[in-house]
């Protein structure tokens, strides 16, 4: 009996003496607090993570057809008049509401990446290690922030300018900044990025110094037009694009000579030389859902999310590029688009050649080029012409390089600078059909109204009169609820 009592006594003393540790949190396995990242490899991990919000499935960024939805006001894209496409129709018909979830998908993707970049730009200063590696990481971080703000400023115009990663209540009352202020940050970020990044990409889905220069060229080009309208930027755009063109072998950029290979519908693990900046995907774990079912007709078990406007298709110059861009015969070639359900041609560029017939996939490993080398060439050609009284031979050479690959004859020579530039803009429309470029061109050149005035009888029409207010997306509703200053 006494033995038992002693045992009890001993046990209770043990429990009481063990108590000092009971109230201690033991965050095993948790990356927590200000000192969570102390090494170069930790910083690298934060950088890789910072790319993720840009392609986080249907949640954020550019991995789903949200990216198509937000540029659907352009004349190259339209959607199904019924089905489940209400949110896409709003965009195509210029009656976008602040509650549309597609706009918040892009908004969140950009800002979540910006937050993570802001954190990297804060944390790296405390890390000692291989300077070249740290420079690469920091350079890429700057690139990502500029890339994200560039999308935000082009879609929304005035947006909050956030450069801190630390959350505090003051963030709940920030005001919107003007495009001029946003572009100032974008320019300085890209100047840092081109200085810090190496010439070679660390992986096909990442950026190098050439990517930063190419993006900066497009940023300058955009600043030349609406709403900043700083014509002096055209010369900067031309100079920056020229830098990339002149050093294309250094950055391993070029046109892919075979347009059919560029849009083969088969994932290319190593990318192509045309990838200046390309998001990479993996069907399992990090899928691209813009390609595949999303762009296919219901007649072929697709989703009809987006396809080409009829006027755009009809005006598209016939030839190799038109054949590769569009998909016009459905049901194994037996049904012409004119007799199909939606009576529209679809895009062939974004189709997927799946290894297993029957599984028409909506989760693909296809890479998504957001800046192609062709873009650099055409940016150069346009900017060069707009910066000067006439287009130079280099400008002609650049645009003709793209046209030749498309199977088209060279551009007529001796055009006036304006006519040449407008022709290049038209060339961009064809070359980047469906590739989230046309809308921004129309906005910066203030041609949205004009481009939407030639609708085919079978295309969706704007529900009201298009004004400059329709150039910008509404700030997502919930953001304005959390911060009324954004209304």
């Amino acid at each position: 009996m006494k033995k038992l009592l002693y045992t009890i006594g001993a046990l209770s003393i043990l429990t009481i003496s063990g108590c000092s540790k009971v109230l201690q949190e033991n965050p095993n396995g948790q990356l927590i607090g200000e000192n969570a990242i102390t090494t170069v490899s930790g910083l690298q991990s934060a950088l890789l993570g910072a790319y993720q919000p840009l392609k986080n499935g249907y949640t954020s960024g550019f991995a789903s057809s949200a990216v198509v939805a937000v540029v659907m006001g352009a004349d190259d894209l339209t959607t199904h008049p019924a089905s489940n496409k209400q949110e896409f129709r709003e965009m195509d018909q210029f009656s976008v509401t602040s509650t549309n979830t597609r706009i918040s998908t892009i908004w969140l993707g950009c800002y979540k990446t910006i937050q993570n970049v802001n954190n990297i730009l804060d944390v790296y200063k405390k890390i000692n290690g291989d300077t070249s590696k740290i420079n690469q990481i920091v350079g890429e971080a700057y690139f990502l922030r500029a890339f994200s703000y560039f999308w935000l400023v082009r879609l929304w115009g005035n947006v909050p300018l956030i450069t801190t990663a630390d959350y505090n209540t003051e963030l709940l009352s920030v005001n919107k900044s003007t495009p001029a202020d946003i572009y100032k940050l974008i320019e300085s970020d890209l100047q840092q990025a081109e200085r810090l990044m190496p010439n070679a990409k660390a992986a096909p889905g990442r950026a190098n110094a050439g990517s930063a220069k190419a993006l900066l060229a497009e940023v300058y080009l955009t600043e030349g037009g609406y709403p900043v309208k700083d014509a002096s930027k055209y010369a900067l755009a031309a100079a920056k694009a020229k830098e990339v063109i002149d050093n294309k072998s250094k950055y391993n950029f070029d046109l892919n000579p075979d347009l059919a290979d560029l849009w083969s519908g088969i994932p290319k693990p190593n990318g192509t030389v045309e990838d200046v900046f390309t998001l990479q995907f993996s069907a399992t774990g990090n899928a691209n859902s813009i390609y595949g079912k999303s762009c296919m007709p219901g007649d072929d078990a697709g989703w009809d999310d987006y396809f080409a406007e009829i006027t755009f298709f009809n005006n598209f110059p016939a030839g190799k590029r038109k054949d590769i861009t569009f998909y016009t015969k459905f049901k194994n070639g037996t049904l012409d688009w004119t007799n199909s359900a939606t009576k529209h041609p679809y895009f062939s560029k974004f189709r997927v050649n799946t290894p297993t017939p029957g599984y028409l996939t909506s989760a693909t490993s296809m890479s998504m080029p957001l800046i192609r080398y062709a873009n650099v060439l055409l940016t150069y050609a346009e900017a060069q012409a707009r910066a000067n009284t006439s287009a130079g031979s280099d400008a002609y050479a650049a645009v003709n390089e793209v046209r030749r690959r498309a199977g088209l004859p060279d551009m007529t020579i001796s055009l006036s600078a304006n006519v040449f530039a407008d022709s290049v803009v038209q060339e961009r429309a064809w070359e980047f059909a469906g590739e989230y470029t046309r809308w921004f061109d129309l906005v910066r050149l203030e041609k949205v109204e004009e481009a939407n005035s030639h609708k085919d009888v079978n295309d969706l029409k704007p529900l009201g009169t298009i004004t400059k207010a329709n150039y910008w997306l509404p700030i997502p509703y919930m953001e304005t609820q959390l911060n009324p200053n954004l209304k």
Partner: protein
Amino acid sequence: MKKILLLLGMLFCFVLYGSAQNMNVNGIVKDQDNKPLQGVTIALKSSGVAVKTDASGAFILTVPSGGTLVISHVGFETKEVIAASGTMDIQLKNHYEKLDDIVVIGYGSQRKKDLTGSVTSISTKDFKDQPVTSVSQVLQGRSAGVQVISNAGSPGGDVSIRIRGNNSIMGNNNPLYIIDGFVGADYSAINPSDIASIEVLKDASATAIYGSRGANGVVLISTKKGRSGAVQVEFSTRFTTAKVIKKMDLLNAADFARTVNDRSIATGIAPTFTQSQIDSFAKYGGTDWQNEVFRTAPGQEYLLGISGGGDKTTFYVGGNYLDQKGVLLNSYYKRFSLRTNLNSQLSNKLSLYINSFVTRQEKNNVNGDGGRWSPVTQALAWSPTVPVRDASGNFTVNDPVSSITYNPVAILLDQNKTEQNTSANILLGMKYQFAPGLTLDISGGTNYINLQGLNYSGPAVSNNLPGASRSSAESISLQSTNNLTYTHLFNNVHRLTATAVFEVQTYKNNGFSAAGNNLTFPELGYYNLSQASSYGVNTAYSNYGLISYLGRVNYSFKDKYLVTGSVRRDGSSKFQKGNQYSTFPSVGLGWKLSEEDFIKRMNIFSSLKLRAGYGITGSQAINPYQTMTGYSNVTTSFTSGTLTSGVVLGNPGNENLKWESTQQLDFGIDAEVFNGRLSFAADYYMKHTKDLLLAVPVPSYAGGGSMLSNVGAMDNSGYEFTVTGVPVATKINWTTSFNLSILHNKVVSLNAGQNKLFAGSSVGAGLSAQPEFVLIPGMPLGSYWGLTYLGTWKAADKDAALYGNVAGDSKYLDLNGDHKIDGNDYHVIGHGLPKYTWGWNNTATYKHFTLNIFVQAVGGYDKLDYLYAAAISANADIRQATIADIKNRYIPGVNETSDIPAFTTTGKNYTQSTRFLEDGSFIRLKNISLGYDLPQSLLKKVNIKLFVSGANLLTITKYKGFDPETTSLTSGAGADVSQSIDYGSYPNAKSITAGVTVRF
């Protein structure tokens, strides 16, 4: 009611007088379970002649013919019968007011009549004839103030149990479960047959003893113990057949094809189906997806209980095997459990007890919360024109017309989501009595849970990229409780019980998981993950600890005036230093009016008690580490087809987090009249919760997500009524019990500068544009945020054009009059929190038959019917309407009165609107059962009972979905903010059970 009672009372008292010849009377006296009673007094009325029954319950007595026998026994109702010839079969009923009923109150026990808190006791007899398989079913509808909702109707599915409303927004509102003293035990695995009693502690004077975990009420479960004497064996088996509670009225294939064509024509595109296809569907039919996914599901259960013991040691052993198939294909729940309770008196001062409970549960495809991937959602999404399988027998993988996702039959058959939960709950304790009344109880307990996950997704549900994963986690919770109790009756008038406890609890969770994507050999599934094109691995760890000191005094004077006071001090590791400790006091007062002479003289009340209580309780049911900002793991691709891991910033931490605390005031009255045949209890309570924890949304431009914060205050108040009576007590004995709870919930205030906070469910991903719920001071929790639907624009409405609409399009309330329907027109459109619940339980016995009827109702709330919304408005993942109601839509020139919108290219349908908000109130026949005890004369020493019962056979509701009770939310932390959304949740089943119980 009163009249019936009086009438019955008169009948009951009616006595026959006969001649005065002497006769020999013999008979047997039994209890309600037909067991012979020994020592029962049989007396001739007004004579002093009396005998007692022997061990077999038999007696012989000589009395005047027609004389009245008075049969009395302690704990039983006294009965008078007229002496009759032949063997008299006399049954005694338990006394309704068991004077010295002892109830468990947490760290001790108390005489029921001395309670000052609001406590509901549920005993075995309340549910023993019903085929209950879980504690939640036992609690459902049987206690005022306790609301039980089956979130998922799947076997073993998630249940949310709320005692007196929802105190917390963010925290977990589940009550605290104590099983035989183990705090925070898992109640879901318990075999109801092992339960001796359940006590539900509702008010703060009762729950404050559990301090930081007591705010949501406490459920104390005591399991059976052995009794000295002969070994008793009870064996039961039950067989069940279950069907889905309802099917939806959907378009058949031909009507669907016609409707799709109508829409195509109306919106200017080519018709999808040809006339000959439609004719063929009309002739041969199509696929009824509901019939394809639902089945008639069998179930079986075996229960064995053995108890007994000698003078010093007693035991109870309970075993259980349950195998219940779900009404959805390939879903099931299995449970094996074994309980052993041992008590041993080691010496006259020292006793030892061991309670061990080992269980294994296995669930497959029972995930009930629904959403876009749910088989229930997809059964309504897929076109009836598409076959389940193609010509070669493979699953159809594409629906070209309606759904954009997976075949619902494939979701069930080409996919396994198996969870195996093995747990052991062992409690070892010793009681030492230093002196009479002074006892030290030291116990140590452990709860060990091993959780194995086995998941497989076949080609048809993975875009032909079959994947599988395994996960393994173990959690260990340790508890040490040291309880010193002193109890004494001073001078025969002062009854005192004092308790002091020191308790420590720690919790640790450790887990890992591995996944293989795009398996090379899909048929090997999760048994061989090595052959795959990519992998994912993860590990996880968490821990927390709690240290508590508590004391309590129960005092009563002359058994008339009762006082209870308690205080608990808790320290938790979940908060930062400075906020770790908090104190939770309480006081309870009782006045037993029935002991006062002036009440006694009224001669009405056999018992009458007034109660009042006040206390403070807390909630710390948040996850550990919320005070710190961390990173979370992500994987993303940088080379097509491969994955690389990285980290992104998680939700911002909040180092100022502190305890959420609830003050509660309770007033109650307990009364019994007609000698306990009619009893009544009523309670009114007010609860005020401050420092509410809420995951406050962070703007996307600041990184999105949410930050856990203390944001404001909320009130819950309510009334609870319970009436129990025996309206008929003749050959037919009818016992009835009714309880009603009425709840008012209101957000009182939010932090300065905030007039509303939003909370989303994420249930409606792809369907709801915005968070569905809002917290606004003055409004209840679970207030819906959305648009008011005004029907369709009619031809005469000239304003339609201002909105870009035409006649037949949806018309919404334009709150700010800007001719635009957007976020600025959102407002509070309804409330998802039920305002009342009631339960009505009836048991009637006649000879060997027992009939039980149990009805439950929940009401006064709105449900957001996402499933109906998705399937009629062609949104998100469903491209065409499948609900038959679409035939009644607005059709220009044909049906221009309908408020179901027309097919146009100009209309917009918002699911987050009053159009899809429906009254969720329902009244349900939860159980009806009939039992039959085989007459004892047929069998010696063996008692056999047969029964048949039906569950959920009848539901009265206006709700359009499958089941008003189920929702797409879980019972977990933070779920209560988003009440009552239903998007393809697993519906309840209606079932028939037949069984037999053998006792010997």
